[in-house]
């Protein structure tokens, strides 16, 4: 097999060796249940608390405000359902955006069936919400605003500080799905007035199957998973100790030299975008030109369909992703691309390349070269390209 060029770091990342090394003893040497009182158990407990502390420090929270979950989706579900059910007496209205991850959108859909009202804010062509529309949407019934920190498809970063300010002024809980942000950009929950925040370790070189929900002290929220007294009675189930340990180590590593890492990623990102624009016509960059994740490139190639692009890239050993309907098993292309106003036929031809710590300049150049060939080949096959040429 060819060497893999992995440019799908927004989907998941490899667990770093240092992270894995940290985890390993907790599988079969320090395997005690943290709830047990003997030494083997309290070693596990200590390891869990050290990780909690590391995560809390990173986002300027208190350790007792961090609760481990099985991942980003569970954290999203918990924040939304937990606040909705616990605050039903105060109101039944939730505000979110049209371009949230399914973990938020589908949970909102479920809550609508339970009698809650949900406002889905529009976004502009770059994927940014409209703060005026947010303010206008707030009613006496509004109990929760949930706006993602950074979009998983197009990388756009939302004006979180302003959302936090508005939520605080109106005394409404503010949750942010920061699954794409944590580990990649600096987040301070106090400065940004965030009440709840979701994260997932596998997006920042930690293991899959572990995440966390930050819950500001005082927030009224029901548990989602009920049982034993773990996580101070708020999230039951034997702790995934190796996962928790890995998450703590991964977040520490992620924020070491973050600025340097991001400078490098932005350089690679811009080189990739420039390479594509210089070599291929009829392309457009999706997402905000500057307010975007350092590692995110999302481009539409007109006249071709995303899945065939991905398969062709895969044959060259390049891993990317697409907002194409054909990769998702639905008929509708990505709600995010439609949300920023792309017509269906163009949304079908999108490609997301999300860079990571292991990508190199050579890889970027190789991808540009291969993409140029592949796009040309697929367009030569496309009846739409032919028509477009005729029109010109």
């Amino acid at each position, binding site marked *: 097999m060819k060497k893999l060029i992995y440019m799908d770091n927004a989907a998941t990342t490899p667990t770093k060796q240092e992270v894995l090394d940290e985890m390993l003893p907790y599988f079969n040497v320090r395997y005690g249940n943290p709830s047990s009182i003997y030494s083997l158990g309290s070693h596990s407990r200590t390891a869990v608390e050290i990780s909690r502390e590391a995560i809390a420090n990173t986002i300027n929270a208190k350790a007792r405000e961090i609760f481990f979950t099985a991942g980003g989706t569970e954290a999203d579900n918990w924040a939304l359902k937990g606040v909705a059910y616990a605050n039903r007496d105060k109101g039944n209205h939730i505000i979110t955006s049209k371009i949230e991850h399914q973990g938020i959108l589908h949970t909102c859909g479920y809550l609508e069936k339970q009698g809650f009202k949900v406002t889905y804010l529009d976004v502009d062509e770059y994927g940014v919400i409209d703060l005026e529309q947010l303010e206008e949407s707030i009613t006496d019934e509004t109990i929760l605003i949930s706006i993602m920190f950074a979009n998983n498809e197009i990388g756009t970063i939302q004006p979180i500080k302003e959302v936090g300010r508005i939520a605080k002024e109106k005394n409404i809980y503010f949750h942010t799905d920061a699954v794409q942000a944590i580990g990649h950009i600096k987040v301070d929950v106090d400065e940004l007035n965030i009440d709840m925040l979701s994260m997932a370790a596998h997006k920042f070189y930690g293991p899959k199957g572990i995440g966390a929900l930050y819950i500001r002290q005082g927030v009224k929220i029901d548990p989602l998973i009920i049982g034993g007294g773990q996580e101070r009675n708020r999230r039951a189930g034997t702790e995934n100790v190796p996962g928790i340990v890995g998450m703590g180590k991964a977040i520490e590593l992620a924020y070491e030299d973050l600025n340097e890492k991001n400078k490098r990623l932005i350089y690679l990102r811009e080189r990739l975008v420039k390479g594509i624009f210089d070599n291929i016509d009829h392309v457009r960059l999706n997402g905000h030109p500057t307010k975007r994740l350092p590692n995110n490139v999302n481009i539409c190639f007109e006249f071709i*369909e995303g899945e065939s692009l991905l398969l062709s890239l895969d044959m060259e050993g390049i891993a990317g992703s697409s907002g194409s*309907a*054909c990769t998702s098993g639905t008929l509708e292309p990505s709600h995010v691309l439609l949300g920023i106003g792309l017509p269906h036929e163009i949304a079908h031809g999108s490609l997301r390349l999300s860079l990571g710590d292991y990508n190199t300049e050579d890889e970027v150049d190789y991808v540009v070269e291969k993409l140029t060939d592949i796009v040309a080949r697929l367009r030569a096959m496309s009846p739409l390209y032919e028509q477009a040429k005729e029109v010109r």
Partner: protein
Amino acid sequence: MYSEKVMEHFHNPRNVGEIEDADGIGEVGNPRCGDIMKMYLKIEDDIIVDVKFKTFGCGSAIASSSMATELIKGKTIEEAMNITNKAVAKALDGLPPIKMHCSVLAEQAIKSALLDYSKKNGVHIEGLENFDPTEDAHDHH
């Protein structure tokens, strides 16, 4: 996800292109849905002597187009009419359930091109009486 046959046809599709003086041209699908197939037939003495296609679509759409052209090339119109979407999928060693509509599209593209031929040449083709090329392939899977 895909069989090796699908991947092979996707990567080396047969009969890509156009036929300048085609006897029948059919186009089905919808760019909104992410797939369009256009098929060109050259027909002599009721026999499909040449066939080309152009497709905008996913891997299985391209592979289905390619396989469909292979299946009808050199066949009589009647034989071509008997090629069902299932035959296309089977020849590809199967398609994932959510991709079966691509094979439907391929069947429709053939029929659509034959319909065009029958109209242009005033010949009747058995089985095309109720064929509606605008019917949505996505309902078939």
